[in-house]
């Protein structure tokens, strides 16, 4: 009798500990989600709020005085339109070129019979650890006349050892037998790459393409460094960065007044929020459809084989 009681007591203790843990874990996860999402949603609310009104504070998830003016100001600015064109262009073209070149290089070093495969791999792996640094690279681009052009976004970063290695790992996992019949039919290396390997590599191609595309979309430093004087080559993130630093400087003085635009007011803070939202919107909207590729990519590339 005593024994049964004891086990019951023990069980209920375990049960209590379990419940306590699950409650704690649930609270932790909910807090995590709130901390992740709240700041984004708050910026979203401010971006749809009237400028002078926003300065009063107290806006949380819903705009208090709804307006689309902040976005109107952002999209009417000539620089932003140009920046959007350049950003879309570099994302599309840069991703395409990077994908083709990385895939080709990965294909070459993944050929088991290639005479110089280990030398070529080493040549590229070294680039992951050693680099010339900011100033020598800037000097090189100047000498190559790449600075001040759109191509500085596309050409230098197209091949990256990391992306190449991710693709190589995937290609090495493709059974050789699949190429055998094509080889017997006399297919050359290029035909095998195009007809046999590439169709099988679609998942890894998608992953690398997404990584590269997000990188292009998010980059601003190259625009600032190589195209500071060329407003026609500006990018969205760089324009946003300029807005942020001007809002930062004015935030002390501009708290009181805003600029009236057709009856509504905008302030650096609401403009900044609107530009932030506009710049991140494409990624957030595409994110649900693409995220599985991101995860595949990390598990493919992260654990170095």
């Amino acid at each position, binding site marked *: 009798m005593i024994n049964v009681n004891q086990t019951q007591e023990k069980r209920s203790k375990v049960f209590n500990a379990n419940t306590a843990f699950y409650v704690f874990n649930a609270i932790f996860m909910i807090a995590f989600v709130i901390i*992740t999402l709240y*700041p984004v949603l708050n910026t979203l609310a401010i971006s749809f709020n009237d400028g002078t009104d926003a300065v*009063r504070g107290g806006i949380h998830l819903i705009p208090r005085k709804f307006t689309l003016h902040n976005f109107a100001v952002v999209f009417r600015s000539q620089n932003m339109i140009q920046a959007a064109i350049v950003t879309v262009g570099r994302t599309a073209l840069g991703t395409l070129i990077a994908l083709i070149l990385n895939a080709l290089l990965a294909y070459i070093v993944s050929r088991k019979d290639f005479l110089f495969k280990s030398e070529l791999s080493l040549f590229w792996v070294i680039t992951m650890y*050693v680099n010339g*640094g900011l100033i020598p690279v800037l000097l090189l681009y100047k000498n190559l006349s790449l600075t001040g052009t759109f191509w500085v976004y596309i050409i230098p970063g197209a*091949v990256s050892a990391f992306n190449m290695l991710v693709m190589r790992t995937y290609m090495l996992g493709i059974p050789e037998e699949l190429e055998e019949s094509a080889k017997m039919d006399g297919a050359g290396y290029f035909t095998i790459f195009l007809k046999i390997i590439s169709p099988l590599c679609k998942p890894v191609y998608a992953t690398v393409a997404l990584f590269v595309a997000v990188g292009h979309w*998010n980059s601003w430093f190259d625009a600032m460094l190589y195209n500071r004087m060329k407003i026609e080559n500006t990018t969205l993130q760089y324009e946003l960065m300029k807005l942020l630093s001007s809002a930062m400087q004015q935030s002390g003085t501009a708290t009181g007044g805003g600029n009236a635009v057709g009856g509504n007011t905008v302030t650096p803070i609401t403009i900044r929020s609107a530009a932030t939202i506009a710049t991140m919107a494409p*990624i957030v909207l595409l994110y649900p459809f693409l995220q599985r590729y991101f995860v595949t990519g990390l598990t493919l590339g992260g*654990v170095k084989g």
Partner: protein
Amino acid sequence: MSRLGSASGYRRRKRQQENMRKEITWKEIKYQKTLIIWAILFVIYGFIFYYLPLGGWLMAFQNYKAKTGLFGSEFVGLSKFKWLFNDESFWNTVRNTLGMGIINLVTSFIMAIVFAILLNEVKSTGPKKVVQTISYLPHFLSWIVVTGILQDALSSTGIINEVLMKVGILDQPFNFFLQPKLFWPIVAFANLWKETGWNAIIYLAAITAIDPELYEAAEIDGAGRWQKIKNITLPGIKSTIMILLLMNAGNVLNAGFELQYLLENGAIVDWSRTIDIYVLKWGVSQNDFSLGTAAGIFKSVVSIGIIVVANELAKRTGEERLF
């Protein structure tokens, strides 16, 4: 047992065959000429964009002038390095870079592992998926966007000030961006906010790969949750942790640029400026290419040193290593 043995033996033999290099003969070269031509093009490309800049390191030993160029500028030996090492603000940037790099490295590791273990304990797949999907969304936002969001959250009317004032810790809004002491924690927090979910993916994958029988056996032996985590989960992902620590150790000096650059102001510059920003200020804004290059070389050399030391330590303790 014998079947296993012979299978692995077969695999080993096959791998040896694969690794055996073909002899370089004209016939083979002719057969592989497509591959070789492409390889040469890739080597030329890589040489220009990755190896040629290393030649620019010459500038650090010169008084580089754009007019005279890399080959005509006057050599000044180590005087640029001497100037650099005598510059107090340079050592501030070294301290800041290392400090923030190490804090970021440690906090992001701990948070990612804790998050992965806790998320793994969430048993219903629906909520688990939702939390995970949300958790790595910030990874895909640029640092600029994150800075914008951070400025909103920490502004005088932002949520942090609001909460602190409601709780009664503060009487009036506090300007977080003017506090040198708070800068490193703010950077660490922003880094955690952006990367925790993303960093956790790899640990989650590693945890999933642990044999479930181990947990069942432990349960039969009466192990509690904490004991299971300590004795099964953590040892199970130890090699992943070590590999990632090693890979990230070399990046410690890269751990700070964008946020520090965007949030820099006169009040906190002594504690916010990193080596990269120093290079940018001197090399680009002040147009002193030589000094910028010298600081860049310092960073590269220290980085490689850290990688080598970390690798050596890992080798000594018998853990995984990079090379």
